[in-house]
């Protein structure tokens, strides 16, 4: 059975989501990172809390599924999600992944104290959004097209003043939705180069392993099998758009039997449902690991 494991990034966090997480693992993570994980609405105002909590939730689920004998054929992470994806692919160990993401979250928090962020445009194609971005972008007011979540849903990243101009243009040009996102930095754009440089320095001294499955890279939307490409993605995905639509297109060409979306949320399963009805879909935020295990067993037997 070919299983596609999907790891969402920031956005779906909610207070209490760590209730079911292995308490020992949580304690261990707090020790490794020197961060007390609050798992409260207040806590989730802070992006270090958000990134570490989501990662913890996903790593805990990966461990539980692997303990039951399940392995991914393909892994795909969206933005922050690539770290749990790399862990699931056996590329990086637990301690290193938490330290790496702590660094990443802190760097991202510090890099642009104010005036920068992200927006989302729904209902225009990527070339259409690109054109609007080109009209607004300048050296003093930079804005870039960033994540490609689906064909008609793209984000933009840059200086808020420029983002707002693009959003207004998008509405004039028929976008069904164009709004600011609650993201305090211009993620997935060249403006994050400094963050990438520091991450790469940290990653260079880690002991990483060849992946045990196919990894879908954010930065170019390709299916990759080499450690070199995954390493590049881990360090540099902050400066590239997440080419999610392309990643999913490629993933489907590998003809998976099942997709499994790790917590939190179900957004990527919904996007996938709009593209195909050819595979079974599991969302771990909506069912227990036991239920997922039961379904996997049932589907594997049917093959």
């Amino acid at each position, binding site marked *: 059975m070919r299983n596609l494991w999907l790891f969402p990034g920031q956005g779906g966090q909610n207070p209490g989501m760590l209730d079911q997480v292995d308490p020992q693992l949580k304690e261990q993570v707090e020790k490794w990172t020197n961060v007390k994980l609050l798992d409260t609405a207040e806590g989730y105002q802070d992006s270090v809390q958000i990134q570490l909590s989501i990662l913890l939730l996903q790593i805990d689920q990966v461990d539980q599924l692997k303990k039951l004998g399940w392995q991914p054929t393909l892994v795909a992470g969206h933005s922050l999600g690539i770290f749990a994806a790399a862990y699931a692919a056996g590329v990086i160990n637990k301690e290193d992944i938490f330290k790496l993401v702590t660094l990443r979250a802190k760097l991202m928090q510090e890099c642009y104290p104010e005036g920068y962020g992200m927006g989302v445009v729904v209902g225009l194609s990527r*070339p259409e959004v690109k054109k609007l971005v080109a009209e607004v972008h300048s050296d003093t007011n930079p804005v870039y097209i960033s994540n490609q979540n689906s*064909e*008609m849903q793209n984000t933009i990243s840059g200086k808020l003043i420029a983002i707002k101009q693009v959003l207004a243009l998008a509405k004039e040009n028929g976008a069904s939705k164009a709004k600011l996102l609650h993201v305090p930095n211009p993620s997935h754009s060249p403006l994050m180069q400094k963050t990438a440089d520091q991450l790469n320095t940290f990653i260079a001294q880690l002991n990483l392993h060849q992946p045990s499955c196919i990894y879908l890279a954010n930065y170019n*939307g*390709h*299916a990759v099998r080499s450690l070199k490409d995954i390493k590049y993605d881990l360090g540099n995905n902050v400066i590239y758009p997440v080419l999610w639509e*392309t990643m999913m*297109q490629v993933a489907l*060409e590998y003809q998976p039997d099942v997709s499994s979306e790790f917590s939190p949320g179900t957004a990527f399963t919904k996007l996938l449902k*709009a593209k195909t009805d050819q595979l079974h879909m599991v969302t771990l935020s909506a069912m227990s690991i036991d239920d997922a295990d039961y379904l996997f067993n049932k589907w594997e037997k049917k093959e």
Partner: protein
Amino acid sequence: MTEEKNWHTHRDAKNARLASASSLFNGKFAKTEDVVEVLNTLIKPGDKVVLEGDNQKQASFLSEALTKVDPERVHDLHMIMSSISCPEHLDIFDLGIASKMDFSFAGPQSTRVSQMIADGTMTVGDIHTYLELFGRLFIDLIPNVVLVAADKVDREGNLYTGFNTEETPTIVEAAAFHDGIVIVQANEVVDKLPRVDIPSDWVDVIIPADKPYQLEPLFTRDPQAITELQILMGMMAIKGIYAKHHVQTLNHGVGFNTSAIELLLPTYGEQLGLKGKICRNWELNPTPTLIPAIESGWVQSIHSFGGEVGMEKYIAARPDIFFVGKDGTMRSNRALGQVAGQYALDMFVGSTLQIDQWGNSSTVTNGRLSGFGGAPNMGSNPTGRRHSTPAWQSLKPDDDPLAKGQKLVVQMVETFGANKKPVFVDHLDAEEVRKEAKLANVPIMIYSEDTTHIVTEEGIAYLYKTDSMEERKAAIEAIAGVTPVGLRSNPEEVKKLREKGIVALPEDLGVRREDAKRSLLAAQTMDDIVEWSHGLYNPPAKFRSWS
């Protein structure tokens, strides 16, 4: 006297290869577990290799084995494949086993194909129509090795390919008579074959497969997924094209639009008194949605490119209609089917993802180099055609003493496709894709000059009646709805085009939108189709409802 030239170097090379692998063979048979070593030994770097894979049947045992050969021994293969359908067809490029590809269709792998061309992992010879690719196997792409799939093989090495004969004989012939090596995977070894589809003389190596070859039910459409808009378009097409032009011989593309038409023949077509007058002889895979029309006496004959999962018993029980051997199973043939589709038909009806302002259409879109399969052969007007039929003749211009008829090539599309993207565009994405993939030609599926009709939910454009490109563009705009192309249309112009008979709206055809109801379909569920077939049709699992 100079030394005599050796005129049988190919044969010598083939014999040497087979001799070097002889320890792996017992007669023509090799063991299942030796498959990788057989390929390691018989295939040489730079070989032209045909790996059988079309849009339905896959030599999956051999294609998986090919991913496991040693890239030190087997590399830089030039693959020739009518369809790139399975992940492993591209994995051999990632693994350094193959480097060049000539193909027709890559729909199920089109994103990876685009990526591999962009990063240089794959060089593309060309994107072909099926007939071009089959033709070149005998001209300048003569294969060194072919890897094909058979259902059954007897002890002497004769092959039975049955329902899914498809292109196997064509591929095997190109190798067998020019000293290529023919390697066959077989589902089953038997003492007596139902019939011989390919004689053992043409075959070099047979390897029993670990499991039956992969087969896709590609032409099965569940009537429940047909929309009322598609029913409306079907009614317009039947009245405004099929009946108007007396279309008797035809092919339908793969789509819900044409399924709707098939299911409207026994109801709406019957009401119009068209039975026996249209849609008599078909070049078409055995699509289940045609069963009601067959059962109610509309269809005289169907020749098929390939089989269709679940239709076996039904076909066996209807030898008057299908091409069936003495043994009671169908024989298909993609090469001959494509010849028939190009030359012997009144009409081809297809669908597409984009149509440009001039009427060119393509399924190649940004980031997806899909190729086209059968549409470009069947959707082209064979200008060398001689024989006349009422439909062909009805498109003959009357102002030229040497004029001849034309094939009807019909595109049926809704003005907005999946994801609410406009189908009608000023420029095809294919123009950009040509640049990115460095292709010699823009990958157009059906050219404007060959397209005679376009049907949308708005109406029909009779493009063959236009006498300038300006008029052709105006006719397309008139039926392009609220797409950017359609918004250029103005009522004044549409009125003129309707008067000239170049554009017909539903009311011009006497088709009432409110009549386009699901109840008009001869079968509304898969169960209905099974019932029409007297229980002979056995739908594949994924189309069965358990409720």
